[in-house]
């Protein structure tokens, strides 16, 4: 399973302190409706270490953590906590085992004070169900001091910053006696200074004997704070390495897989004039400028691959391009039309097709029929509707066509969309957008969640669309996919395109350097 070259056995700085690891997974497997999320995972987290878990989206990190925290149960394999096999069937059980988890989205009550939030669920009481406020404040004060952090126990959670809220979450776990802490992408919500503070806290917790497992995307951060790093890919453990023995290159390569796995899908690409042009686009969300002066053009008969670590402005860029978000400044042109301020319908009429990242939530209506979902977004087009009246026969024909050519497995086109499995729902959305004969196709992570066969099929469709003259903007955090398809590759980092390559000239390690911010500065070889 794990590659011999990168496996480190018997490692961990805490080895001397105690024999049995804090957490040990043996052959843990978890399947969802036919998809293997975790495949024979072997993982060992030593007591008193900071253990990072990295991998692409969908690699199985969250599933694994959910099983450690009792939110999911393994189908096979066993989990040992401090050497004892345990069945963690609920978060309550996890807490009993002194395992705590800080979720990406905080679970705090905004109206309550810091102290109230920390004791919530395990309040010191004075009998008769009354809260012993002083005792609560005192306990929290002690905890915060021991943690070396200034935190006002009487402040209301909604009034304090995100970094402090995160500290409240961590204190909550300490208050319940947890000494194995799971942090799910703790840096995603923080600004750089807060990240530094968080790392200081993590080091201190480690010094106090706590064990920390944390999920992260930024490899620089991981190397900074972790003792050991375990890489997951496609639900499997690729290997565990000592942070001191490795670098971003090695970890990135482990994450995305070896270049030898790639098979470029060749078509008859004859790149034409620009179809989509984006000039100096800026999008601010919640006070953060997430797209920061981005320039981009995608040409007719071209697949432009946008590579980047998630959270660098891709989602916001797509929203601005589709018309779901309003840019602060900048211009967007499709063919000859300026669409900067146009709404979605106008853009769709101008020739935009859009495969949303979250296809179940934004790409379809589960309660409605397969037929109806087959024309969603194209409902105002002939022949599906004429003068405001739906042509149910034409809609049914389209649905049957899609089901046939995209091999969507359905009980019947007259069945509701929720009767389809996840993969088939995806295919329906993909097929519908391909079939809208667009000028520009924006595909956000089009193969996420698909198996290898379906992925290959979608790749083929993307190439065919390109060969027919469509401009394709492919957003993907999967570098294999970008390198397999893109005629040009742009790397997005901190809301800007920091480098562009010709598809055939880009290499995975070079892209990785730009993606993780290890190398910056504009480079344009395309």
């Amino acid at each position, binding site marked *: 399973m794990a590659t011999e070259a990168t496996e480190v056995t018997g490692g961990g700085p805490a080895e001397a302190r105690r024999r049995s690891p804090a957490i040990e997974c043996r052959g843990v497997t978890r399947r969802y409706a036919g998809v293997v999320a975790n495949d024979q995972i072997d993982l060992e987290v030593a007591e008193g270490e900071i253990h990072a878990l990295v991998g692409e989206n969908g690699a199985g990190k969250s599933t694994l953590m959910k099983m450690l925290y009792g939110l999911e149960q393994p189908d096979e394999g066993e989990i040992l906590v401090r050497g004892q096999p345990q069945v963690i069937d609920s978060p309550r059980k996890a807490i009993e085992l002194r395992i705590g988890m800080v979720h990406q989205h905080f679970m705090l009550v905004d109206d309550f004070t810091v102290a109230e939030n920390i004791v919530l669920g395990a309040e010191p009481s004075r009998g008769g169900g009354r809260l012993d406020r002083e005792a609560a404040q005192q306990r929290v004060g002690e905890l915060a001091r021991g943690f070396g952090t200034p935190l006002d126990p009487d402040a209301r959670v909604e009034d304090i910053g995100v970094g402090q809220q995160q500290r409240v979450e961590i204190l909550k776990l300490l208050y319940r006696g947890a000494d194995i802490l799971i942090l799910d992408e703790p840096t995603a919500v923080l600004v750089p200074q807060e990240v530094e503070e968080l790392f200081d806290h993590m080091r201190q917790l480690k010094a106090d004997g706590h064990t920390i497992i944390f999920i992260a995307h930024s490899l620089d951060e991981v190397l900074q704070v972790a003792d050991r790093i375990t890489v997951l890919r496609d639900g499997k453990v690729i290997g565990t390495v000592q942070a001191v023995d490795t670098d971003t290159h090695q970890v990135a390569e482990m994450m995305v897989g070896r270049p030898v796995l790639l098979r470029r899908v060749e078509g008859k690409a004859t790149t034409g004039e620009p179809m989509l042009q984006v000039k100096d686009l800026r999008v601010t969300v919640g006070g953060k400028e997430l797209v920061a002066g981005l320039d981009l053009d995608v040409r007719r008969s071209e697949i432009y691959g946008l590579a980047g670590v998630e959270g660098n402005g891709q989602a916001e860029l797509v929203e601005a391009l589709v018309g779901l978000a309003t840019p602060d400044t900048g211009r967007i042109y499709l063919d000859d039309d300026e669409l900067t301020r146009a709404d979605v*319908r106008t853009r769709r009429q101008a020739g935009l097709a859009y495969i949303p990242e979250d296809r179940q939530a934004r790409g379809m209506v589960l309660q409605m029929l397969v037929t109806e979902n087959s024309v969603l977004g194209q409902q105002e087009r002939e022949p599906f509707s004429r003068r405001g009246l739906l042509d*149910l026969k034409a809609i049914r024909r389209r649905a*049957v066509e899609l*089901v046939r050519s995209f091999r969507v497995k359905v009980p019947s086109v007259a069945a509701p969309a929720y009767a389809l499995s996840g993969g088939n729902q995806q295919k329906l959305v993909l097929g519908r957008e391909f079939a809208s004969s667009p000028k520009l196709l924006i595909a956000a992570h089009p193969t996420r969640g698909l198996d290898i066969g379906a992925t290959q099929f979608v790749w083929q469709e993307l190439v065919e669309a390109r060969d027919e003259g469509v401009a394709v903007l492919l957003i993907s955090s999967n570098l294999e996919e970008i390198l397999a398809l893109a005629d040009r590759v742009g790397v997005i980092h901190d809301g800007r395109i920091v480098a562009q390559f010709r598809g055939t000239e880009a290499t995975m390690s070079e892209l990785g350097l730009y993606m993780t911010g290890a190398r910056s500065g504009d480079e344009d070889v395309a």
Partner: protein
Amino acid sequence: MKVEEERPPPPEPEPQAEEAAARLPWGQRIRGWGLQLLAPVVSLVIAAIIGILVIVVVQRSWSDVSDVAGAMWSYGLFNRNSVAFILGRATPLIFAGLAVAIAFKAGLFNIGVEGQYAIGALCAAYVGYQFSAPTVIHLPLTILAGMAGGMLWAAVPALLKVYRGAHEVISTIMMNFVANAVLLYLLSGAMKDPNQRGGIAQQQTPPIKPSAQVGSMVPFFNKLGFDFRGSAPVTWFFVLAVVAAILYALTVRRTRFGFELRVLGANPRAAEPAGIRSNAMVMKAMLLSGALAGLIGLQDVLGIDDRMKLDYIRGYGFTGIAIALLGRNSGLGIVAAGLLFSFLDRGSSGLALSTDVPKEVTDILKGIIILTIVIAYEVVRRMTARRQLREQHERA
């Protein structure tokens, strides 16, 4: 812990074109309809059982149960005027159900139907008594005025929602209070009938001109062989209500507008990327809801009382919520639910006449029906979801 059998991954499924193209097989379709009917039927049965228990507790006698059932049945359906009464009484309830349902379809909860119909009726009454014109002009104008009044009252919460994000539940409730106050103010002031003779002047409008009155359906029914009293309260508005229900059903199923309405109601997050202009749809849905609400009171004002009176607020708007729920927001279902509630009303009059069971028992019955229907739908929904999930797993 169960260990799943290791199975090789299934081969890429070849869809059978025929099967996909065909409609659902008949067996499945009938099963689907059965499931749709299951919830209302189950809830009616449960409501009846609880109703019986209530009667037993109130009257301390089992024989009263059969008396009540007999009285409701024979008086409710077979009294000389019962059919006319049921159809007439169902008319405003059908309009009310439709008004609530079209907002529901867009994911909006219009609790303001009550106020919207009051204002609509007020507008219609004004046009009805104030102006004179030949019937072909005057009556349609009066009806349009009613719809316009309802739309006006619905437009306020709609605008507040679109431009200020105010939740429609709160703003429509508030608008109900305002409507009530406006009604009181105008009926005891500017719109009060000045030509009342003797006694204490009633707070009511002048009579509607004959050219704006809508005809009774009694002569028509009596030609068909019925024997209704001339005063039986059924007018041609009943036909309008049925037509409205048909148009509603066609709009929801067969038009692009209805399609977009349903997408917005079922998954607003998918509506946006599909190019559906959510704000415009919210406006349209609320205005249509208000227009339908404006029709609710017109039978009473233009056909039965022939004027607007202070006792006018009769709770049709709130009942409409129950009708829409019971009728599953479908045109046919709403007509059926309207008729059922109307029958219960009629039956309760029979209780007062031939038993000593308080007629409030039927109100209890109606309340229980509404409660059980909500629960039964949820139960059936979960059953269906589970079944679907199971089938999906079997396929996977």
